[in-house]
């Protein structure tokens, strides 16, 4: 009975229109926009999809979703359960809900240890809020597991995970023994969308809630300090090229760029 653990984080919606994306520089936080709900981090949802594709082939695979965050993170777990995952673990503790990546990795690693035995840990390649891309690999290091990153395809059979990774200018196939950590990228494909029936079934699936005390560890400490968070001023004055016809506009653009020696 293979057991896969998927890490899933809830983040502010990255589709938030640029005009509404604002930062409270004093608090060093993004200002939530009324009416725009937080969402599961996209690469983590792709990770759940990767696990479900394994479960499509091996029906008795169990998928556990683990999410660290405040009350609202429960929605991210519910979405993953509606996609087809089996159970959830919500780590909800003010001592770590806002931790940096290092304390987060320690906390998640401790939770994962409590969920032994497992064959595979899947995470997104980076969370789409901080884009740091370290938690998956760091958990692998803490648990002394091999990690394979930036997967576009993932298969598991006979104690081996076979990953196709995206390289800068191509692809590579890597095998790793289970248990291991794999982080996934968008090239893996579209995650399945839950149907209404599955959303209702998900309500019956178990979600445990843990605090740091339940993990049997000292509260993990941050190793970094966020000094500043700001929106860079990148807007510039755009020169719009116009013409009597599309053809003329195209030609004027070329002439203008040539004047600036850009051609």
């Amino acid at each position, binding site marked *: 009975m293979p057991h896969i653990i998927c890490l899933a984080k809830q983040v502010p919606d990255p589709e938030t229109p640029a005009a509404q994306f604002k930062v409270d520089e004093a608090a060093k936080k993004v200002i939530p926009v009324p009416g725009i709900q937080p969402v599961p981090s996209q690469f983590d949802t792709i990770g759940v999809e990767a696990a479900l594709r394994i479960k499509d082939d091996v029906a008795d695979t169990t998928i556990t979703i683990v999410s660290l965050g405040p009350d609202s993170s429960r929605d991210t777990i519910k979405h993953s359960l509606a996609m087809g995952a089996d159970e959830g673990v919500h780590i909800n503790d003010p001592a770590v809900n806002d931790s940096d990546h290092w304390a987060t990795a320690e906390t998640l690693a401790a939770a994962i240890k409590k969920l032994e035995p497992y064959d595979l840990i899947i995470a997104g390649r980076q969370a789409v809020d901080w884009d740091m891309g370290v938690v998956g690999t760091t958990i692998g290091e803490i648990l002394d597991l*091999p*990690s394979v990153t930036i997967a576009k395809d993932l298969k598991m059979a006979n104690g081996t995970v076979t990953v196709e990774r995206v390289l800068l200018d191509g692809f590579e196939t890597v095998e790793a023994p289970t248990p291991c950590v794999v982080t996934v990228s968008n090239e893996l494909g579209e995650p399945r969308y839950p149907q209404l029936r599955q959303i209702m079934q998900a309500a019956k699936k178990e979600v445990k809630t843990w605090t740091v005390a339940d993990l049997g560890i000292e509260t993990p400490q941050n190793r970094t300090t966020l000094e500043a968070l700001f929106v860079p001023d990148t807007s510039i004055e755009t020169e719009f090229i116009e013409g009597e016809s599309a053809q003329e506009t195209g030609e004027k653009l*070329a002439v203008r760029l040539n004047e600036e020696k850009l051609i």
Partner: protein
Amino acid sequence: MASGVLVFGEATDDGGLNPVTAELIAAGSNLGGPVSCVLAGTGVEGLAQECVAAGADKVIVVDDPILAPYQGDAYIPMAERIAKEVDPSVVLMGQTMMGRDLAPRLAQRLGTAVAMDCMVLSMDGDQLVAERPCYGGSARAKYKINGTPQMATLRAKATEPLAPDSSRQGEIVKQEAGVTADQVRTKITDRRKEKAEGVRLEDATVVISGGRGLGGPEGFKELEELAEIMGGAVGASRAVCDLGWYPVPTQVGLTGKVVTPDLYIAVGISGASQHMAGISSVKNIVAINKDAEANIFKASRFGVVGDWKEIFPAFKEKVRELKSA
């Protein structure tokens, strides 16, 4: 007392020095140095002098077939050992396939942390201040690392290399990889390059990119023709790569390639922040888009609002005419 900067240089697959190496050395020098540079791989010994010319005070060559191609388990023992021996104040790697993988593992091993994909590094006293994009490129964050060494990975082309000085002296030493095959738990069973025709995106002085506004993969033929006329390269937005309209290695953006051409022409691209993160240092962006409110125009020096299908062919032909004049 931790001091100096340790950088992890890289060789390319075809035996040259990856340009990020000179950038890391320059960054280390700008932070105050001295700079020690690890050069790991196979057949890399001959590149050590180039690292000295680029500004490294010491080059630690670790030359072993087990180190190519990169696998984390093969690199971490020597990386940890060297970091402890050199005892630097700062450790830098490139935001490359190697850096993305090795930096967090090494940071965890050393009980410290790493700030990834940094665009600006500076010192505040003896503390590193690392500035990096986040929220898909919509925001910037500045971090300090509480532990030692203070680690960061650097975005490619974010730092000017120093002028190479072939008369520069530096210490070159050799060290063992210190790892055996049975300690490497992963196995690479296949590797395939998707070789793009013509100029590499990362090196191109002109990049013409297509997005969903092209309406379909056929649109890219027009962009390819212009690229040929201008000696440039063709890029793509993540949306169209996900749709299979253009190859994955051409994706420009936060999780794709960061490009630094003199001219970037965005056709049918809305300008989502994660795409803009791939062109954040480009000085001359030209956008052609049907939507006057498209985000891409906020960063464009020149813009055309309209249907690319009607505008682009005339633009292309005029460019052809002006270039042959």
